[in-house]
């Protein structure tokens, strides 16, 4: 399929347009004849799939500036939806999802590996864990003051800002952190080479989970590592 593609139609529409229409079916053999050498070198990354296999993939020069323009607006809009949830549609969940989508956008434009270097694992985990802890802490402050869980009028701030702080520091952080984490996790894929914790020293908790899940009839195999390795082969 890729053998039959015309050899040049991306850079110079005016100069080589006539050649396109006629040599659309006879491959790349005559390419050195009708293309100047410097252009052949410049375009060598785009010949056909066999020749392209060795060349590195270049990120698109069109997508990157667009993402540079759109991403700040989208991130600001996510913040707006999060912070302005009390007066307009939206809230922490929606704003967190939009902010996570901005990270997806950046990752698709600039490469997932570069984004992974830029956005460290610590940040993602801190967002998810910190969000959960912040929600729990906001809920437990009234308990410490002798009230009920999440009784906002016992907070030292007005009730409205209590709700807002739950949305902002709690839900938005959890949702954006977990969604970014899922994205990087799925981009990495399954750890099939044993580098995950399938053979690590984390036996007890995992075995307990497996017992609860699927081995009700043989619940006494708490120290048996076989459920984990089974999971690795699936």
């Amino acid at each position, binding site marked *: 399929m890729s053998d039959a593609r015309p050899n040049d139609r991306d850079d110079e529409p005016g100069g080589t347009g006539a050649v396109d229409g006629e040599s659309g079916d006879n491959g790349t053999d005559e390419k050195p004849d009708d293309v100047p050498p410097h252009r052949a070198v410049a375009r060598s990354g785009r010949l056909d799939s066999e020749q*392209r*296999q060795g060349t590195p*993939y270049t990120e698109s020069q069109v*997508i990157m500036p667009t993402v540079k323009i759109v991403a700040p607006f989208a991130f600001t*809009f996510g913040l707006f939806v999060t912070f302005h949830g009390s007066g307009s549609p*939206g809230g922490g969940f929606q704003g967190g999802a939009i902010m996570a*989508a901005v990270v997806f956008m950046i990752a698709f*434009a600039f490469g997932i590996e570069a984004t992974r270097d830029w956005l460290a694992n610590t940040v993602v985990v801190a967002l998810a864990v910190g969000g959960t802890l912040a929600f729990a802490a906001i809920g437990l402050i009234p308990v410490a003051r002798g009230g009920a869980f999440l009784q906002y009028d016992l907070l030292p701030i007005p009730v409205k800002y209590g709700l807002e702080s739950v949305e902002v520091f709690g839900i938005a952080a959890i949702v954006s952190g977990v969604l970014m984490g899922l994205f990087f996790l799925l*981009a990495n894929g399954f750890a099939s080479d044993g580098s995950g914790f399938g053979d690590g020293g984390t036996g007890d908790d995992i075995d307990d989970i497996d017992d609860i899940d699927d081995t009700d009839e043989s619940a006494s195999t708490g120290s048996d590592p076989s459920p984990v390795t089974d999971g690795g082969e699936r």
Partner: protein
Amino acid sequence: MSVVDTALVAGYTVGEFLLFAAAGFVVLAIGMLYRAVKGPTMQDRVLAVNVLGTNTVVILALLAAALSEPTFLDIALVYALLNFLMAIAISKFTVERGGVL
């Protein structure tokens, strides 16, 4: 009396007219669904869904205007900002060399 309640033609107000226009855009979207279903290549499908997304931005904006709820424009803004994510994701997805994804 706002613009939405002004009579336009044949007893219909501007708001009802905008609702009909939105329905017309939805009918066009149903037509474009043919290309999303038929293909034949994945790029055709993504292209059709991308056009559907732009259509939906207009539909949501028309609904917000017709119901005279300007905050509903936020929903259209989300689609306008995030709709091209699927297209650029597909553009990475179909590249097979070097394990880009």
